[in-house]
């Protein structure tokens, strides 16, 4: 657009400047021609009035005659005497080189500004008289007219440039509109507005291009819709399955718990299977409960009920209530944060339970606060996790020891991580084979 304005402006400027110069030249030379012609006539007239050595009366008569003709002033010099038709003009104001030329007998002219007025001064000798006459033709009007013309041309030039810019901008916008539209459309597509489409308005390259853009957007939308539907179906399925499982599971758990109370009264040969049944029902219960919790977390149904919580005493209570005191040491400062105690308890129980599962004993829990916020460290001296498996410990159904023999559901750490994030915190793991593993829960202090 700028280029268009430049081209339009430049050509208009050249046009204006050259027409101004041509007109000026023509007017100036025309003015000279007229002045010379009139001067010749005036000199002839002077020759008839003046003698060889004119008297004052003669020069006065000449001045009177000139005055009747009007339009110019005259300065004369005869012998040693000078005379002038104007109070403000004197022979001293005649340019020297003009005097020189006139002294050589030529009819000559020169432009001179005197007292702020531009004059064309024409000088010549009066034939058969020892007299030189200088005519002062005012060119004030001519220069005014030229200045006016210049101003008009400048105004027109400005208008042309503005108009050119405007037209250029309009043209450019019309030409570039499809590109701008495409840019906006690509942005909104990238931001997830999958129903974004471009109008196909023309038969040219832009039209074809818009059509392919729309095809691409359509394919993308279909693909993403299918994917998210599949994901939603999968999640709904998990949620439905765990809900449907709950009723029979509730019966199973209650039944198994009664069975467990009476194991010693069961005949020898059925006792072991009954024992296994009781244990497996407990495993199934853990799995289904974990599945339900993670599907609630996935569905965004999880609620956070914050209250001021002393993390240290919460951890101590969690350990004591599970009768882990003999195998777990708790080193705690008083750290009070605003958080959901149930979820925090769940995370802590998960981490400590996990550590006990792998190390068996000597699990150390440390509760404290540093510049980054509150933390709970759960450290065990178990076998540790190999580096290639470490990044996957928070994956669902991932078990670090691939034998899958552990009692956990495989969802515990994933749930702990989700809960930690729900509380505005995070969960990190450090491990070294042969030395042990440390999980660090971080929580914001508000």
């Amino acid at each position, binding site marked *: 657009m700028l280029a268009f304005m430049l081209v339009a402006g430049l050509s208009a400027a050249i046009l204006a400047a050259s027409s101004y110069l041509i007109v000026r030249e023509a007017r100036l030379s025309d003015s000279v021609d007229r002045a010379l012609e009139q001067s010749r006539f005036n000199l002839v007239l002077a020759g008839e009035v003046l003698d060889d050595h004119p008297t004052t009366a003669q020069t006065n008569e000449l001045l009177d005659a000139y005055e009747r003709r009007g339009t110019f002033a005259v300065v004369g010099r005869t012998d040693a005497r000078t005379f002038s038709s104007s109070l403000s003009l004197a022979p001293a104001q005649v340019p020297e080189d003009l005097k020189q030329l006139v002294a050589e007998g030529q009819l000559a002219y020169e432009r001179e500004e005197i007292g702020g007025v531009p004059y064309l001064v024409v000088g010549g000798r009066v034939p058969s008289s020892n007299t030189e006459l200088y005519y002062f033709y005012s060119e004030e009007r001519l220069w005014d007219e030229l200045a006016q013309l210049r101003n008009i041309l400048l105004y027109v030039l400005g208008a042309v440039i503005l108009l050119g810019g405007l037209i250029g901008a309009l043209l450019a916008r019309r030409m570039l509109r499809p590109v701008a539209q495409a840019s906006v459309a690509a942005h909104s597509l990238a931001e997830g507005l999958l129903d974004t489409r471009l109008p196909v308005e023309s038969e040219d390259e832009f039209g074809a291009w818009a059509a392919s853009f729309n095809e691409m957007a359509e394919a993308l939308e279909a693909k993403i819709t299918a994917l998210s539907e599949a994901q939603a179906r999968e999640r709904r399925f998990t949620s439905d399955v765990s809900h449907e499982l*709950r009723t029979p599971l509730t019966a199973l758990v209650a039944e198994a718990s009664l069975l467990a109370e009476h194991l010693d009264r069961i005949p020898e040969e059925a006792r072991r299977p009954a024992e296994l049944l009781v244990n497996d029902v407990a495993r199934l219960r853990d799995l289904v409960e974990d599945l339900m919790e993670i599907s*609630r977390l996935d569905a965004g149904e999880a609620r956070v009920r914050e209250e001021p919580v002393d993390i240290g005493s919460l951890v101590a209570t969690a350990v004591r209530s599970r009768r882990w005191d003999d195998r777990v040491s708790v080193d705690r400062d008083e750290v009070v944060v605003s958080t959901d*105690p149930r979820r925090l308890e769940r995370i802590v129980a998960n981490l400590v339970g996990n550590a006990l599962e792998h190390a068996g004993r000597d699990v150390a829990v440390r509760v404290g606060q540093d510049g980054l916020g509150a933390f709970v460290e759960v450290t065990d001296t178990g076998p540790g996790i190999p580096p290639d498996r470490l990044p996957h410990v928070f994956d669902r159904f991932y078990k670090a020891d691939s034998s899958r023999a552990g009692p956990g559901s495989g969802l515990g750490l994933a749930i702990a991580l989700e809960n930690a994030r729900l509380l505005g915190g995070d969960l990190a793991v450090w491990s070294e084979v042969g030395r042990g593993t440390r999980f660090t829960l971080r929580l914001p202090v508000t």
Partner: protein
Amino acid sequence: MDERLLLVEDDPSIREIAKLGLTNAGFNVTTASDGREGLLHFHQTPFDLVVLDVMLPVLDGYEVCRQIRAESRVPVIMLSAKSDTVDVVVGLELGADDYVTKPFEMPELVARARAAIRRATAGDEEPVLVRGDLEIDPGAFIARKGGEEIGLTATEFKLLLELARRPGQVFTRDLLLQRVWNYEYLGDSRLVDVAVQRLRSKVEDDPKEPKLIKTVRGVGYRFDTG
């Protein structure tokens, strides 16, 4: 022990095993398989305890609980589907004394049932407490405000008695769970919070600006006499 217990549960397996477990534990159990049948039984015979599933056909557990509460202070335990959603709180706000999350083990349900009944039985021969315009009679299990009897459930009465016995002392939620609900570790602090809310709505002049039962932020509750 021969407490009469009404069990309302629609799933036949759960109903049967729960009945078996509770009967083994010494309860005299009557069962119902939907809400309306449950209310019919409730109106025919007096019960010492009601165990009520939330999801019931015909009339759901909340509605049954509400109707029972309208005419009786019998302890109610809800069998709730999930522990971390509104279900629990809604049940408690309608006047349930406690809840047990499915799936549950029988010893847990039995322990909760016994604790609920223990709360509902009259205390020892303690003298009548007078706190401001409140009169609390542990022997008769009755509280009066300005001379008029207030309809408190057994749990609400125990909670009021516990707090009013030691004015000025701060009770943590855990301590109240132990003293009122008789739970060590088992309980959920929401039990305390909801029960305090309900109690305030009955004993305070303005429950939004409690003068008697004050909240001690981040810790628990305290009884003041204005």
